[in-house]
């Protein structure tokens, strides 16, 4: 864990960083997409439970005390904040953890973790539609 990760306030709620962060949950599996840069994120069951709790307005500190992987939650929070997915909302009061979310958090078999799918890079490498030498012609930031 980097020293910076300890700077994230665990007592306040968090919210998605901006309107380009979209997410869906399927049977407890969360998929997040940053529409601005094309990156997708998927989570372990522990990560999905933490994400859904945070989206409900729960403060991370309450999750630390609920999850059997509580010690890993601060680093997970720091990672997803560093990815630009979440920002703290200290001006908002945290919401208590519901029974159903507490059950989801406590039942998680895996520690909270996130996988990143760099879709832009993957498209140019793996997708023949984009397997061209002129990458600026397709969704890409034009180089100056």
């Amino acid at each position: 864990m980097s020293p910076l990760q300890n700077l994230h306030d665990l007592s306040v709620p968090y919210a998605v960083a901006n309107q380009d962060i979209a997410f869906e949950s399927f049977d407890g599996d969360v998929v997040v997409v940053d529409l601005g840069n094309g990156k997708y994120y998927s989570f372990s069951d522990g990560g999905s439970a933490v994400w859904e709790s945070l989206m409900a307005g729960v403060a991370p500190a309450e999750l630390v005390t609920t999850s059997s992987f509580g010690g890993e939650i601060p680093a997970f929070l720091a990672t997803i904040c560093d990815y630009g997915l979440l920002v703290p909302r200290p001006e908002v009061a945290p919401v208590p953890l519901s029974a159903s979310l507490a059950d989801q958090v406590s039942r998680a078999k895996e520690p909270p973790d996130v996988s990143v799918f760099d879709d832009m890079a993957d498209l140019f490498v793996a997708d023949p539609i984009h397997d061209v030498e002129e990458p600026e012609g397709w969704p890409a930031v034009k180089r100056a």
Partner: protein
Amino acid sequence: MLLQERRFDPVTPATMAQYGRSLLEFASREQECELQRIDVSLPGIDLRIRIPDSPLADAARTAFAAGDGLPGASRLEVEVSVLHTGALQAPAPSSWGREPYKPHEISKLLGEAGLQGSLFHDLRFWQFYDLEAHRGVQLMKGPEAFPPWEPGAPLRAFLHWAYAAQGRRMTHAGCLGLDGRGVLLAGAGGAGKSGTVLAGILNGLSSVGDDYVLVDMSQDAVSAHPVYSTLKQDAKGMERLGLDRLLGPRNLNWQGKVQFRASEIGALVPADGLEVAAVLLPRTGSPRTTIRPATRAEALLALAPSAVYQMPGERESGFRFFSRLVARLPVFHLDLGPDPKEVAGTIGAFIAGGSA
């Protein structure tokens, strides 16, 4: 002052909508007799293409699937004008300025002006679409100054914008069916979509496309419909499937693949589409073909990225659309064996057995 006499500064995010409006206005003034008119009946859309005689005109006459089947849907009239410098006094395409071209930001800015649009930088290949008037314009530097994928799926971006506005979606997926029911085959390039579709077609299954299909969820059932009639396969796959003997020597397309029409191999293409009963996620490299459950998150990760990012604009609506799609349908991994008959037989039995 005529547009072709005006000198546009390089386009920036702030001026792109204005530039698009000027091109749309120019296209609307063109005399009908100066452009060829190609009418295409597509699911839910009557597409009128105005285009000079050119390779793209040839592609537009042959690349679309026949049929207008989308039962119960009202039809939308869409007109797209294709222009290039040197014909009909069309202006030279403007260049892009020094600001970064961020597609999602540009899409949002254009959307505020009632437009969608995109630029293929190297060729100054511009496309704009008026979301309210349902009119589009495509401006090129010359008759052959288009991206290499354009002839195989011409005007794809315009159809994407028109269908997205209807709540439907051009979807990067293959499709196979039997007796009106079918499965979507989703995954990135190289996953085995096209080879699986061809294996199915050659062994008795129907299909509405191997690369792009229209998916509709506005009715009770999810359905997939044909838009393009082109199929493609690399040399190795052509040999494995016996298509090299069936079709004879062919030129390769920009992907190094043979491109041909579905009718050339006698494909069954249901004009009214197929009721989609499942999403399959193909993957090559197994000793035999098997189907096993996948998670909805896996299906979304396989289906949405390329489908959302290959098409300019409408990213969030695309993510939401495919999220709803995988929430409505069962999803499975399709581990592909090497034998095309076995692949087709497994999928056909899966569909017929009601597992799908």
